[in-house]
Structure formats: structure tokens, C-alpha cells
């Protein structure tokens, strides 16, 4: 019953928060140790209540307090902000200068809407397994750039519940980045400006004709997925509009003319055929190659929502919240199987409650604190728990080091 699956009524949400939402897991992940620290107690939570009332600057002493408040307010979703210099809930009583964001996970948001100009399979809010390919490509590029170039290791990717994905980076150094530094890092990872309407401007990410090393790394990977994603699945150059877009990248007007004539005359040529036409020409005219590389980057390089990443005080939806339009849980994802991920395979809140019901009938209705263990939510919670364990190990190591130096 699909309609039951996207039931996100207050009653459903309340049961979800009471019985399934893994508050302890979220606490460990944000707090990096068992005893509550400033990372949790000075952290802003913001609630979106039924009727779109927005409640900011909430903060809690521990996971139980958070759960209590969530169950009481029963928000449609809640968001996580930075760790402030004081407890956010005391904000009103604190001198303005003494309340400022201190640390915060470095976060990224990739959303399908930024790919609307190039994707051909879906539109607007729609998403399917085909266009997930864009997101998967972005995840690969960002993930390896963050690890190899910036040296951060504590990354967790979280499905946004509909048509995007979030990345949270919890390395100590990453959490301490200033807004200015975040802006610089985003600059490094931005090659495509979604606002600049593609065709009018050719991309310019080369220095002296050469691609900077970071883009070369990305290109090595993007080349491997370009064929399937852009040529086969999206078939981007099939339509006249599509191939005209492609021809914009070729600066030699005679080449453009001859290709245009050829493609006009045989409208059945697929995107792959057209790309092969170009490759054939390039094999004898190597100066065409940079243009083709630019095309690959332009069509597959990650498109970031830069504003989300630049400011420490930007709020981002908490993992395991329910997307109000789809009813799907915002689940953490394993980056190694990101290519196989199917958004439609993610459990919805309705489905999870049905699973609970089924167990209830089998075992008698003993409601336990971690009912998620018995549902299909389990692998996702386990994933975040394992990630948090890594963060906690790190903190323990640091503490031991301090002990030694004493």
C-alpha cells in the first residue's frame, strides 16, 4: 500500500521518534565520546514543527533530553547546526558578542536540481536510478578529493530522503575550519557554476591550457563513467538541442559545420555515435582533446550547493529524519556501494512501522529502546555507529597522548 508508506501524519512521526529514531547513535556521532561534551551540549538543533513553524537555538544536555523534546514537539524534521561558544538555548541571556559558532562538521549538499539542465530522464522533484548516476559520480569525486587532497578521513554520506545527498566530515581539523577556509575549500571543489547558464559560457578551469592536478584526478575517474551515464543512460546528445550544446565546446567552425550537417542528416545517430564521431576526428587532431575533456567535466563533475558548505552556522537536516514528501528515511550510505544505491529501496517510515507491527504480533508488545534493531533500519544505524566508533577511538587516542605528555 504505497499510500500508507508515505503517511507522515503526526501519529506516525511520534511513533517513529518514540520507537525507532536512534537518538543514542546521533548523540555519539555528534559528541565523539560517551560523556556529554560541548560538541553536544552547545550544539544548535532546529525543529520544523507541524505547520512549518521553525524553532531555532534548541540545545540539550544529552540524548535523552533531545529525545524527550523531540517526542514532545513532534517535529516534521529537525536540523543540526554548529557548536556555539555558549549553550544555544541560553542565547537570549548572553551578550551578543559572546555567542558565536565555534566548530561544525564540514558539510556538503548535492542536489539533483542542479543537474536539471543536463539530465533527460526526470524533471524537478523526480529521481530515478538513472539520474542517481550523477549523484554517485559526484560522491566518488568529492569523497576522494576530500581524502586524498585535504587528508580528511571521517566522512559519512547521508541520503537526503528525496533527490540529493549530504556529506558530513567530522575530523577535528575539518570541524575547526573558519568560514573563510570553508569558502576556499568549496572554491577548490567548484568547477561548474550551476547559476551561469551553461551554453553561454565555456568552462574555464585550465591554467595555461593545462588542467590543474585536482581536476586531472577527477577526470581520470569521470572518463570511466561518462560513456554509460551521459551517452547511454541520459543520451544527452541525441536531440538537436543536446548536440548543439555539445558543439559549443568545439572552437573550430569547419569541424562544427561538418558534424552538424552529418547529424542533421541522420537523426538516428545516438549520443554514443556522435561522441565516436568526435573521437575519430580527435585521433588525427589532438588539439581537440582538451575540448572533449572539458565536456566530460562539464557534464559529470559535482555540482555543489556552495552556500551550505561555506558557513559554520548553516543548518542541515539530521540523519534518520523522515523526508516529509516521500516518507523515506535519510539514511547514511556506504560510499563503496554508492553506485548500486537505489533511492526507491530506502525504507519509508510507514514500512518501518509495519515491520514493527509484525514483530509486535509475533513477540507480544514489549516496546524496547532500540526497536530499530528489529527493522530494516538496522544496517543503516549500524553504519553510523561504526563511523562514530572511529570518531570516539580518535578522541581516546588524543586523550591518551595528552596523558603521556603530562
Amino acid at each position, binding site marked *: 500500500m504505497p499510500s500508507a508508506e508515505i503517511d507522515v501524519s503526526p501519529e506516525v512521526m511520534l511513533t517513529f521518534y518514540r520507537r525507532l529514531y536512534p537518538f543514542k547513535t546521533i548523540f555519539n556521532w555528534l559528541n565523539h565520546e560517551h560523556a556529554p561534551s560541548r560538541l553536544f551540549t552547545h550544539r544548535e538543533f532546529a525543529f520544523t514543527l507541524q505547520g512549518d513553524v521553525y524553532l531555532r537555538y534548541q540545545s540539550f544536555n544529552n540524548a535523552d533530553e533531545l529525545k524527550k523534546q523531540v517526542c514532545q514537539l513532534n517535529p516534521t524534521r529537525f536540523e543540526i547546526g554548529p557548536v556555539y561558544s555558549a549553550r544555544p538555548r541560553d542565547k537570549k541571556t548572553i551578550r551578543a558578542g559572546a555567542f558565536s559558532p565555534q566548530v561544525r562538521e564540514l558539510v556538503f549538499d548535492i542536489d539533483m536540481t542542479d543537474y536539471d539542465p543536463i539530465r533527460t530522464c526526470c524533471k524537478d522533484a523526480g529521481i530515478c536510478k538513472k539520474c542517481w548516476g550523477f549523484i554517485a559520480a559526484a560522491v566518488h569525486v568529492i569523497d576522494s578529493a576530500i581524502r586524498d587532497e585535504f587528508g580528511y578521513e571521517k566522512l559519512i554520506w547521508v541520503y537526503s530522503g528525496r533527490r540529493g545527498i549530504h556529506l558530513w566530515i567530522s575530523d577535528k581539523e575539518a570541524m575547526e575550519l573558519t568560514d573563510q577556509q570553508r569558502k576556499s*575549500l568549496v572554491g577548490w571543489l567548484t568547477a561548474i557554476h550551476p547559476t551561469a547558464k551553461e551554453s553561454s559560457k565555456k568552462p574555464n578551469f585550465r591554467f595555461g591550457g593545462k588542467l590543474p592536478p585536482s581536476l586531472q584526478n577527477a577526470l581520470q575517474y569521470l572518463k570511466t563513467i561518462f560513456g554509460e551515464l551521459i551517452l547511454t543512460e541520459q543520451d544527452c546528445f541525441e536531440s538537436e538541442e543536446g548536440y548543439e550544446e555539445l558543439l559549443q565546446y568545439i572552437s573550430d567552425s569547419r569541424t562544427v559545420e561538418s558534424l552538424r550537417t552529418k547529424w542533421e542528416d541522420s537523426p538516428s545517430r545516438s549520443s554514443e555515435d556522435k561522441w565516436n564521431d568526435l573521437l575519430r576526428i580527435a585521433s588525427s587532431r589532438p588539439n581537440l582533446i582538451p575540448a572533449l575533456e572539458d565536456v566530460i567535466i562539464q557534464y559529470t563533475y559535482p555540482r555543489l550547493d556552495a552556500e551550505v558548505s561555506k558557513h559554520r552556522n548553516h543548518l542541515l537536516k539530521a540523519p534518520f529524519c523522515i523526508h516529509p514528501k516521500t516518507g523515506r528515511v535519510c539514511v547514511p550510505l556506504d560510499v563503496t556501494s554508492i553506485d548500486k544505491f537505489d533511492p526507491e529501496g530506502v525504507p519509508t517510515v510507514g514500512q518501518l512501522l509495519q515491520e514493527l507491527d509484525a514483530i509486535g504480533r509475533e513477540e507480544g508488545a514489549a516496546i524496547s529502546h532500540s526497536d530499530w534493531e528489529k527493522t530494516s533500519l538496522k544496517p543503516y544505524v549500524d553504519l553510523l555507529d561504526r563511523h562514530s566508533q572511529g570518531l570516539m577511538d580518535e578522541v581516546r587516542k588524543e586523550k591518551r597522548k595528552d596523558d603521556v605528555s603530562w
Partner: protein
Amino acid sequence: MFKGGHGSLNESYVPQVANHGVLKYPHRMNFYDVPPTFDTTIEEFERCALDRLRILAEIESSAARNRTWEELKTVTRAQCEKYLPLNFNLVAKHNDLDLERRRDHLSHFVLRLAFCRSEDLRRRFVKAETTLFKVRYDDDMGKDRDAFLDSRDFNWTSVGQEEQRQYKTELEAAYPVSKSELDRPSEKYYKVKWTRVPDLVERRKVFLKEGWAYVPSREQSSIVFQEFETHLERALEMTARLLPRLDEDTRLLPILNNLSQGFLAGISSEWSNASGSTNTDEIKAEMVDGMAKKHFPLCMRTLHESLQRDNHLKHFGRLQYGLFLKVLGLSVEEAVAFWRKSFSRITDDKFNKEYKYNIRHSYGLEGKRANYPAKSCLQILTGGPSEYGCPYRTFSPENLQAALLSSYSQQGLRSVDLPEIMAAVKSSHFHVACTRVFEITHSADVRKGDGVGGESVTHPNQYAARSIELEKAAKEAMDVE
């Protein structure tokens, strides 16, 4: 570190020996890591700071006027030459070098105190100081610069031969060399945390590996500038936190307030900028008293009278009145004469030591046209101690009425005029009250509503200049008749 006998002994034993070892400041430039610990006079404290302020103000206005980097450099160099010269090691005698560098050191730290107070001031100060640093860094010579950089630990690691070979392709792609550079011996690289070169990262103009940025020596300045900027930002925030204790020193507070206001007003106080000194006739020291009675607004009348009565004015009053007189048209020589005569109870020695230089200084040294504007009404209304504020605001109603009558009854102000003036005061329209007094006391030439040449009073000098202008015009008209 400048206290005690040791240093001075050294100085007298080895004067001006060509050995950099004896320089207290071996480098022309300074990272300002260590605050000055030597003794200084309150006058030197202020003087140095004002000198630096002129340079920074010019840098700020360069941005406002959209000057190019080269233009900015030329202008800044000229300002530095004039107010805070910093010579190269080989150029000047050691005593002079140390003195210059000491002033540079002191002035930077005084301005930190003045500008740490608000986020806006901090941001502007950091920007201007970093620009000044860049200009000087650009001018520094190769060897001096290397020695200067060596004096501080930047935490950069040289990239070894092997590592450089390992990333050869990446480094070459990140830093493309032109053909002419190819035969140059291979470039040296330094490794720093990527956060140290955010500008290079943002433009993707660097090679990054596991959080380390590989910076070629030609981009080394990026690290240096960034370091200077971040260090200063942090230091200012720290100072801001410690400042409340300093505020207890009542001698410093007015100076610091005045400095930060000077920066805020910049050289752009509209009125004084537009006119400088409007009065072309020379004003002699002995004329001031007479002019005060005829032409000064109440705030300056009040300062003038308390100076005549007490033969003294406190620092802030001196500054305020002194700048007003300067813009009025009193030359520096006449100003010295005026203040010497007014401070009749102190000795020549004390006057010369404690006041003379300051007066000359407020003239921007050697008669240079006003770089420090006289205070505008807005500044008088909002800043500084209330005893030197706007009388329309600070006086009690009774005192204000008494002061108005005693100051202006000779020019035609009568007690029947007072209710109208007091009504404006009561509704906090102080400039309206002042403008009305101007109209009443110049009723021969000005009708109600005419104001000061068509506008309200916004500046004491505007008030006085218009009054003098009207008197002159009336005289000329009579001469013609």
C-alpha cells in the same frame, strides 16, 4: 627589555658600528609578535599612533577611490616616508634605524588598542595593516627579506628532492612554467597545511596532497601575508577581551577613543574636507578672543571660556578646540602663541615639553593641510567625555539658558527667544536649536529658516566660517556704499 642599565651601556659603548648585531630591531619589518615593553610618554604614544593612522587612512581611502595596486603603493610609500619612515639596514645610521623601528612598533600596538573594540574596526584595521605590510614586503630587498623571514618560524617544511620527484607531474601541472623559465634550476617548494594558503586553494592554484599544500617559493608571500593577517586577527580579539582592564587608565581612554573615531571619520569629514580653512585672512593669536565672542557656536564658546577662566583645558578639550582653531585658520605659529598665552600658569619649559609638540603635531607637522579633521557635530554629540560634548545636549535646561544669554545677548539674543530654542532641545533636535541661535544672532543678514547658508549646523567650523563670511560681506557692502 629597554629598561635597566645594560642596554644603554651598550649603546654608548658601540655607537653606530656597522654590525647588525647591535640593532635592537635587526629587521626593517616587524611581525609584531611581541608587544613593546619600553617606557614611553603619553605624547609619544599618541603622536606615533596618529602618524600611523594617517598612513592607514590613506590606504583605506585608496580602496574607496579604487586605486590600482601600483597607485596604492606609490601613495602609501609617500605617506610612510613622511610620517613613519622605515629605512633599509644599509641606508641609515643605526640609531636612526632603531628609532624608526621603535616608532613603527609602538604605533602598531597603540592602534591595536584603539581598534580592537568592535568587529568592524578590527576588520578594517586588519585590512589596512595587512596592506601596509604587503607594500613594505614588496619594497624589502632580497637579503633583508630572507633574513626577516628567517627570524620567524612559519612552520613550513622544505620539500625534499625525492618527494619533489615523486610529485613531479602534479607540481608541473599546478605551476605551469613558461618556456623561458624551463632552463632555470628547478624551483624550491615548501609544504604547509592547506589552511595557510586559502587564497591559492580557492583558485586551485596549488598542489594539495593529504592536507598539505606544496607552495613554490615564488608563491611564498601568500603564506607570509596569510600568516600576518590571521595572527593579527587573533591578537586583536585577544586584546579586545583584555581591554576592559586597560580602560581603567583614564589617560589612555580618551586618546584611544579619539584615534578610533579619527579612523571612522577618516579624512572624509565632509565639511572640513570641502573647505579646509575657508578664511583667507590671517588670524592672529590675540584675535581669537574677539572672534570667539562674535562667531563661535556655543560648544566652542564654552571651551574658549573655560580655557580663559582656568588657564587650562584637559586633553580632550585641547584636541577638540585646537583642531577647531586650526580649521578656522590659525597658523601653527599663532596656535602655539595662543596656547602659550592661555596656559599662563605653567612654565615655558613645561609648555614646550608637554604641549608644544602636540599642537604642532595636530597641524600634521610642517603646516600640512588638515589631515585630522576638526570634530563634526555628530562626533561631538556622540563621542568623548560629556564635559566636551554638545552643550545643547549636555547642559541642564537652566544652565543652558543662562549660558545662551550670557554668550549671545550682545548679538541680540533675548530671553523671549529662549522658549523656541528650548523646545527644540527638549525634542532632542540639538542642531535645530544651534541653527536657530545662529539665525537669531545674525538676524541682520539671515532670516529665520535660512540656517547656515541654507543648511542646518553640522559642524562648528561651518557655523564659524559662515558667521565670518557674513561679517565680511557686510563690511564690503558698507565700503562700497
